[in-house]
């Protein structure tokens, strides 16, 4: 592996997760994403590089950050709290160090493959006892394909199961090399209509659907994760097309996880002092989701709701 690919940008590593694959899992959230979904729940994961993001609620307006910033990129608004002008910020982290109230936080740590694997290995007993493992998620992990491949390869050597949580938008060559070390793919399908896909996520879906076909053809176990976003993709026509598409992919498909939209991310945007581009209203009720479940069950062996 090239030295420059031995490092990745990691947003967070969460241990003992139960929603992202079988058993107990350690989820490695990487930074950077190819898509720009309006409802995105992890806005801190979008950009590829480390960045300082304010936690507005923690700010006590002490002004320490202002005094240490060499490029005057930080401003503290009496009402809105700390703001960072990204065009000026050099990510020197002086402000993060100066802030004792956790109001300015660095998102994205440069980590080596060894560092990540060392942390993943911590829960090995738990994976063994529960059939769990590591899940690489994002952002979009395929934005750092060499790094993902290296982490997965190392985990496999340790006997740790691997899962990839991807939006599927990546060159097939990249996909292919990662899949060699992947036990399970969790694959997002958001919208079957490419124009609508482009409208809400910034790119068309041709590459995504093609990759789905190819993964299934390779025989790598795959689960589809389908967000239900009111006003964006929740039409019967879309579900019929998606179910039909998935149904034709063959035995590699383990099931479908429906992820009904919930408005919780709004709070996160607020905390970061960002505008939420998708004020989608209330969460969905069981009654809204029930017909979608039935529809998918006609085509796939298992449908779950939520994580």
């Amino acid at each position: 592996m090239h030295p420059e690919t031995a490092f990745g940008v990691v947003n967070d590593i969460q241990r003992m997760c139960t929603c992202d694959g079988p058993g107990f899992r350690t989820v490695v959230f990487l930074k950077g994403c190819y898509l720009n979904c309006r409802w995105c729940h992890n806005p801190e994961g979008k950009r590829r590089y480390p960045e300082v993001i304010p936690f507005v609620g923690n700010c006590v307006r002490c002004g320490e950050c202002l005094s240490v910033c060499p490029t005057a990129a930080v401003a503290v608004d009496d009402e809105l709290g700390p703001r960072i002008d990204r065009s000026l910020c050099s990510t020197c982290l002086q402000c993060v160090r100066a802030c004792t109230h956790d109001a300015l936080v660095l998102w994205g740590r440069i980590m080596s493959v060894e560092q990540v694997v060392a942390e993943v290995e911590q829960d090995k007993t738990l994976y063994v006892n529960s059939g769990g493992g590591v899940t690489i998620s994002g952002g979009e992990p395929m934005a750092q394909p060499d790094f993902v491949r290296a982490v997965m390869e190392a985990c496999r050597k340790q006997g740790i199961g691997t899962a990839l949580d991807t939006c599927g938008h990546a060159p097939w060559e990249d996909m292919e090399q990662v899949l060699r070390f992947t036990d399970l793919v969790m694959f997002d399908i958001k919208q079957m209509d490419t124009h609508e896909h482009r409208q809400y996520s910034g790119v068309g879906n041709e590459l995504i659907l093609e990759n789905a076909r190819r993964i299934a053809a390779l025989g790598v176990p795959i689960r589809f994760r389908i967000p239900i976003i009111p006003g964006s993709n929740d039409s019967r026509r879309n579900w019929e097309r998606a179910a039909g598409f998935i149904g034709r992919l063959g035995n590699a498909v383990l099931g479908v996880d429906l992820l009904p939209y919930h408005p919780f991310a709004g709070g996160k945007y607020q905390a970061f002092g960002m505008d939420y581009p998708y004020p989608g209203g209330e969460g969905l009720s069981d009654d809204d989701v029930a017909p979608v479940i039935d529809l998918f069950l006609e085509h796939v062996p298992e449908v779950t709701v939520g994580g």
Partner: protein
Amino acid sequence: MGQSTARTEKESSVEELKNRREWWFVAEKTRSKRLDYLRKGVWKKGAIGGNYAPGIKIDLTFPQLFIDKWQEHEGEAIMLQKAHALAHVLDNIPIFITDNSQIMGYIGSAPHNIVWHWQGISMVNEEIYNEEGIIPEPEEESLEILANLNDYWGGRTAVDKLARVLDPEDAVKFMSGAIGWGTPTSAATYSTKDFDYIFKGFEAILAEVEERMEETEEKLQGNPSPEILPLYDKLPRWEAMQIVLEAGIRYAERYARLARTLAEHFESDPERREELLRIAETCERVPAKPPRNLQESLQFDHFVQVLSRYETFEGAWPHRPDYIHGPYYDKDVNQDKRLSKEEALDLVGEHLIRTHEVGIFAPKWAREGLQGITGTWVWTMGGVKPDGSDACNDMTVAYMQAARLVRVSNPTFGFRWHPKVKDEVMRECFECIRHGLGYPSMRNDPVLVANTVHWYGHPVEEARTWVHQACMSPCPTTKYGCQPMRMASATANCAKMIEYALHDGYDPVVNMQMGPKTGDPREFKDFEDLFGAWVKQMEWLRNILVRTVNLGRVKDPEFFGRPFLSAIYERAVETGTDACDPSNGDRGNAWVTGFTWVENADSLAAIKKFVYDEKKYTMDEVLDALNANWVGYEEMRLDFVKNAPKWGNDDDYVDDLMVRCLREVSRHSKENRCPSNNTWPLLPENVSGNIHYANLVGALPNGRRLGDALYDGGISPGPGLDKKGPTAVLKSCGKFDHVTDGRAFLLNQRLSPTQLSGEKGYQLWKAYMKTWADLGLDHVQFNMVDDATLRAAQKDPEKYQEVIVRVAGYSAHFVDISRKTQDNIIQRTVQGLG
């Protein structure tokens, strides 16, 4: 037709309630009418926050009946004097039979009364006099009665007598309340009970006593030699045992008589009439003779518990009811088919309720430390038989199911997990936890059996009979294994160890030189000096507690006297001694309960890192900040909170210190000896002492201020300070040996209920438990109520009367604990499964 529709509606709404995880309403809808009536009929005896609920009154009939005969027999041997007084109480205390009930016996003269034991500590007697709300009407008259009683008992109680014998320095420091809890008398106590022996029946024990007495009298007529001299003291003790056993049988007969009277003259419902006759028959049979069926065995058990609590304040309830009653359940339900499962469940559910309703006045420190409950009544379930095979039975399952129906906060269960436990039993445990009961706590049986053998040398077959002596400490239920009194009165406020090490032994809170002078920390040249001071303070604190409690134990037969307990203790019956007499073969099972323990490791780590390793702050600065209670040092305090290493994150820097502290204590545990010449290991746990001690422990280097709640205890990390997730907590806790590094170690985990739903939830929990066992931990308990529910319960307590949370070592109804403890529980990290 109409009926079946109604039932479907009920069922579907139960489904909905389950989906919303409103378990308390699920219970209300699914339990039998009888259980519903009995559950709702219970008067809440646990103090709410620190106050008794409106309507709860102190029982004045009991102490007045007692003192009548007590004074009449003044001058007799204490056990005999007490036996006469107790028999008089049992013959005359008002008794009652609640509608729909099938199990009899209550301590006190009415269901809303709580009792107390005036012969323990006169300070507690005065506390009752001073307490608001519990004085029965007419108040003036009751105060007069209380004042007279207190005047009589003042100076005559067990602790008053002990304080005169203790070294005066020890007495003052022990009773300062700063360094620990303790009532070194069996007046405030708990005892292990050997039901293999007790179930022979009181008549059989009486016959045994009679035989011993005859034998002894014969010897006394023989050749005079020094050997016969102690025999003279044995005779009145045996006589005392006879008196209380006979009184116990008469007490049961009073219930039988009342039940017959009701059946013949009052009851019109034929079904209830039959029940009353069955009650009469049961109470005529037990405790005089061995039980023959489930109702008799439960009734026998409960009579024994009630009689014990007439004799003394039993603050815990060591018990293994599934093991004791399992064979009777099997006979009635599986073999003879005398009872249906539902009928059996009614009896089991009522057994929990009858226990839950017991109310004993607790002094304020105990009410704060054990919020919302009367005592730490942890019943032991599961485990193995003496031969090592699985002991779980249908009764284990029945108790778990009944617990979900009656949802009492007390008793709770501690489950003895071992690798042979069947999946169906594990599922029952999990259902209880999932239903938000907070119990069973899970105990690692192989580890604890080994631990019991290691510390006290109990033979392994006996160690395998263990029950929770209080919240946590295993004790065998055998002839020489049973522990008659609360040796755990040595309850240490461990945070004082580091506090004193940093203040040259001085305690500013009680304005007293408490610990030894171990030097001004400014003069310490390195971390080893500080650690050395810590070791000296630790030893001093343990020594004073152990000295006091050892003396209390040895003096107990002289200062208090236990006729009833002696009568049900095989070794006491055999030797004509008081059950508490350590010379009758007691093997010893003492431990020091370690409150506020983890603060030591975190504080030592913070100073080691910042003062000695990194030299970021001087000791001067640290002491100035602590003396100012961190006021004016907020930035520095946050640095100590956030950037100093904290226990529970799988960080060797602090974890190694924890292990080192534990090993120092273990070394010292073997140097401290109990009256049976056995060891005094440490058992870190807190109940809710972390709140009680909030105002008694000064500022600490872990960033804590005077008044802040301490950590929630045992080896649980500080709330919100375990940043690395639950496995890191488990791994930190797995770094020391749970057999040789201490007696037992309490670990709290809050798990998110949404993540543990369904079959997957169960499988994940089981994997978690497997990992916990792999790491060799001895204890874990779960809270599975989500933040939203707890917050809602704070806002609207009326609607959430039945939400139960695990406080630490026991469960309590959430609305019954103080706001400060409630906040503390919410603050405990919800371990983010997902």
